[in-house]
Every structure is written in C-alpha cells, then in structure tokens.
C-alpha cells in the first residue's frame, strides 16, 4: 500500500499526468458532492469553487506527460 502512495507522490512531484488527473478528479467529485449534500449550507456555497478548481486543474494537467 505504501508503495502506491510513494508512487503517487513522486508522480505529483515530477508533474506526471496520472496522479494529477486523479487529484483533479477527486476535487471535481468532492465539489459535486458538496453541491448536492443536504447537511451543510456552507459546503454548498463553496462547492462551485472546488469544482471549478478541479475542472481547470484537469484541463491543465491532462497535458502533462504520461
């Protein structure tokens, strides 16, 4: 398991596409969840910013080398 994490972080450091895209996807998913959850109004308010960050990040990082 720790090997997976090490690979993930070293990928992030060397600006590789895989881990960055993963990170962006998680942000998008988090943003969508924040937007639609019924528990906390503040999370809804900030959801758009999280989704926007994730989406922009995805567009940029999908051009990183594999």
């Amino acid at each position, binding site marked *: 398991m720790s090997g997976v994490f090490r690979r993930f972080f070293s990928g992030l450091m060397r600006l590789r596409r895989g881990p960055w895209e993963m990170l962006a996807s998680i942000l998008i998913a988090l*943003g969508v969840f924040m937007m639609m959850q019924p528990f906390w*109004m503040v999370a809804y308010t900030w959801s758009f910013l999280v989704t926007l960050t994730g989406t922009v990040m995805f567009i940029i990082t999908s051009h990183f080398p594999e």
Partner: protein
Amino acid sequence: MTRKMADRLAEATPPGIARKIGGLSDRSLAWLFIAPTIFLLLAINIFPLIWTIRLSFTNYRVNRVNADVKWVGLRNYERILTDPDIWQTMQVTAHFLFWTLFFQVLLGFALAWLINRKFRGNDLWTTLIVLPMMLSPAVVGNFWKFLYQPQIGLFNYMVSFVSGVDPASFSMIGSIDLAPWAIVIVDTWMWTPFVMLICLAGLRSIPDYIYEAAEIDRASKWRQFWTITVPMVLPFLMLAVLFRGIENFKMFDLVVQLTGGGPGSATEVTSINLKREAFEKWRTGYASAYAVILFVTIFGLASIYVKALNRVKER
C-alpha cells in the same frame, strides 16, 4: 439501403469541386474536412457559451430591453450559491440521481448477468428490453402521467392488485412524498437497459480461460464472482454510472412532462428550476450565472467520463 447512402454522399459533391480539392495536400485537406464541423460548433456552442459567461456578470433581462444593463460583478453567483431554495433544488436532484443510479446499477447488472447465462433466445429478449430507452422521454413522461392517475391509472391498479391498497387512495404524482419516487420509477424503467447493455459488454469481455484457471484452483463460484467478475466489469460500470449521472444531473424532458416539477417544488430538479428563472421569470443575467455553474460541473464530470471511456477502449 446502406450502400446507396454512401454513393449519394459521394455524388453530392460536385465533380468540379472534387477535382479542385483532389489535388490538395493532406494537411490542407485535413483542415478542409474539419473546418465546417469546428465552425458550426463554435457558432452554436462556444459563441453562446462566451455570451452566457458575459451575461452572468450583468443584471440583463430579456423582457426589459430598454432598462440599462448594469455590470454586477460576482453578485449573481453569490446570490445563487447562498440561496437555500436552489440548495433545496440540488437536493431534489441528488435524491433523483442517487436512487435512479442505485436501482439501475442493481437491476442492470443483475439482468446482464442473467442474460450472460446464454440461454436460447437471449438476443430477442435483449432487443425487447432495450426498447424503452430509445423512446422520446417527453412522450414517455406524458404517458406515464396517465398510468399514474389515481383510480383509472394502470400503475395504481396494479399496486392495489398486488398489495390490496385502494387505488384511489394515493396519487404518485400528486403527493409530495410519492412524487420524487414516481420520477425515479419512470427513469429506472427507461434507463435500466442502458446499464444492462454496458455491463453485458463488460461480462462478455472477460475471457473464459480466467474462469477455467480459477476452477482449477478450486476457487468457489462466490469467490470467482467477487475476484474476477466484479473487478473486470467495474470499468464498464463506471462508464455507465458516469454517463447516467451526467444525463440525470441535467434531466429535464421526462420530469417536466411527468410532474412539471410539482407538487410544490417536490420534483423541481435543477434544469426545471433554471428554466423557470430563465424563461418564466426572465432573469437572464441571474439564470446565465446559474447556467455557468451547471456548465462547469458537467464539464468536470465529462472530463472524468472521457478518461473512463479511454480506459475501457484500451481493453
């Protein structure tokens, strides 16, 4: 019939032009072929998109042409993202999204698994199962409204036949508690085949020898299911869930015809809410900001979808 179509397509190009472009280099031919598509998409998708973004910073209203348009900065976004009513709408959408995906994945996977038992005539039944998802959602929604009528509707009659409840005692689309489930039922009826088809493709992509090897290792059927079948179908299932998720996030036609967002706002999903703001209250600037929020969310989900698509393609 298929042959003729291609011929006609070829003949539709006048010979004079054909000769002229015939001599072009590959690169200019490539651009010549792509340009019309890109141009049309720019004109009908991107240009309006940019316009929407611009409008979203103003207080423009279509029905008041003479009022001066003011630049309001991020005010529209601020108002939408702090509005409890729109938050409520999002939760209605979430309820719809969660339960339709839940039932469709459950039923779709089960059906695909059963069809993959390869009994005789499974092709015929697959084709018949698929029929609902190809139909017009608006017309289907309108007709389910008839099936849902208390007393005279077939749905209520069947429920009362099975459970003994008086068919006139409940109204699927008239009650605040039942209406959210009414739209879930119709969407599940319509789109389960979609998930089923994709799961079936996943199941068929698993080569037999993997199961044969597991059989030799004496892995139980139950274990084989969880260690071979599920992980191998998962990328396909992801694809189906993402696609249905995007589609249901922007659901409009089916629900608007079935319940119109009512009773009250019990089934007012985001698209219906947006339609009210934009085309009934005519708050164009405000609705544009709303649209931009939906755009960005869907664009984000779509990029994950394309990633999932490419992963399945590599298989």
